[in-house]
């Protein structure tokens, strides 16, 4: 698979904490890559570096061959990388529909001062995206009135509305009701596959990982300690014990 994004030797420390301690990772064109690992392992830091929120102290991030490390977030977004957030980042005083329409407007770069945001074409597109996330009935609800799960979904929907080539999702299913999780990831995966979008997602639900990821990278203390197909990685007793927290009865000490 041709890599679309290549992280090479990324390092970033906060004081004494090495949040990234030599990260090397390729993401293939159209690939779904899951990132797993305990809290504080540096997963969010990796996404923050790839999207320009944090600048690595050393290393390169190649996007189709160009080093984008240290570019401001908007420049990276303009190149086709979008993200969603561990804590949803919505425009709280706007309705869900307007949140989506703003993302579409930003993507289109159409900034006439006199034409309305809620123009028919954008409204229609926003409603279609919301339908995919099961949010259409909440279109006119203010974002600060949503429950945690819906906030999470609206946050991802906004990233999807940017029509990226690579979508980075930080814990997309945390906060989403267990009964809705798989259905939503299924819809999301279908949309992304149809358009050939690559995805990197931090995930704690191993069922989601094994069903939707092409590959799994395991994070621990700022390093990648395992990287491979889900069946292999999730079966590794070391990974099961250290990362997933499952003690296999027959595992050797």
């Amino acid at each position, binding site marked *: 698979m041709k890599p679309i994004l290549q992280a090479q030797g990324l390092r970033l420390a906060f004081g004494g904490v090495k949040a990234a301690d030599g990260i090397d990772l390729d993401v293939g064109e159209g690939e779904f890559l899951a990132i797993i690992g305990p809290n504080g392992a540096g997963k969010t830091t990796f996404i923050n570096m790839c*999207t320009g*929120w944090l600048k690595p102290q050393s290393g390169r991030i190649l996007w189709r061959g160009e080093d984008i490390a240290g570019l*401001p*977030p*908007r420049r990276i*977004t*303009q190149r086709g990388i*979008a*993200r969603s957030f561990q804590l949803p*980042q*919505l*425009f*709280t*005083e*706007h309705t869900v529909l*307007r949140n989506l*329409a*703003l*993302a579409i*407007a*930003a*993507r289109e*770069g*159409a*900034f*006439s*001062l*006199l*034409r*309305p*945001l*809620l123009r028919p074409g954008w409204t229609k597109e926003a409603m279609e995206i919301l339908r995919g996330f099961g949010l259409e009935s909440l279109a006119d609800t203010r974002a600060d009135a949503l429950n945690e799960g819906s906030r999470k979904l609206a946050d991802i929907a*906004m990233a999807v509305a*940017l029509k990226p080539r690579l979508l980075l999702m930080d814990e997309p299913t945390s906060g989403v009701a267990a009964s809705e999780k798989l259905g939503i990831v299924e819809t999301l995966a279908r949309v992304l596959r149809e358009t050939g979008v690559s995805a990197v997602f931090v995930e704690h639900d191993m069922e989601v990982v094994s069903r939707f990821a092409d590959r799994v990278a395991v994070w621990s203390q700022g390093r990648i300690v395992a990287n491979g197909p889900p069946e292999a990685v999730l079966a590794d007793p070391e990974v099961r014990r250290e990362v997933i927290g499952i003690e296999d009865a027959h595992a050797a000490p």
Partner: protein
Amino acid sequence: MTHRREALLALLFALAVLAAAFAVPWLRFVLTLALAKGIAALGVMLLLRAGQVSFGHAMFVAFAAYAVAFLAGQVGEALLLLPLAILLAALLGLVIGLFVARYREIFFGMLNLALSMVFYSLLEKFYSITHGTDGMRVPAVTWAGMATERVGGEWAVLVAALVLAIGFALLARLYLASPLGEALQGIKTREARLEFMGLPPRRVLLVAYVLSAAMAGTAGALIALTTRHVTPLMGYWTASGELVFIVILGGAGGVLGPFLGAIAYELVRVYAAASVADAWQLILGAVLLAVILFARGGLFSLLRGRRA
């Protein structure tokens, strides 16, 4: 509020202004000032949408007023002077906006204040050019080529102020519903998300800043044409505070708010000053207190009141 209802309200409002100006001649001057300040307050309201309060916008009022005073000798036509002064204020807004749009909240407010104080003292100190605190007289101008005597001139500025008020209110309404206008509120609630959507927040705020400077400039030009005398006090920090006061009083929820606030403000000031000397600050202070405690959305929200 629906478009229809707001348009109807605006129409009633405009008719009431004209009727009052017709019935009570000395109100013409007061209403012109109120409309001018309403336009400036509308600009301050745009910035408030982004959660930013400028305590220095009287600088643009004074700048445009002095531009009129300086240029009226050469450009003796009001219909040329007005757009010229507005354009100059917008240009100053662009230069200053490029700098202040990087700052937020208290820093934004105080930077605007600081710049306006610098400008105020320049007007005061360069006596040979500006005549210091004495100010400058504005030479008589023509309106559409016609020389106007006193009453005709008063009506001309009032009608110009009304037309500009309606024009800017419509512009602001369209702008606030456009992507850039809607994004302003995004600066207040989640600025970082704008960055991650590929939309530079500074540019979003800069557009609002230039518009607000143009509106404050419009107010300054109108005030210069109606008072025929400009002084540094037009740009003093209390004049900037007055604009913020007017927005809070009138309400920032709709484009009519600043105009309601400005009219209420000027009428209370005039009537209170006439009846109880020195009591108008007390009255206005009490009104502001009541608005903040009981009607956060200002006079505009009281009018909107009963929801359909």
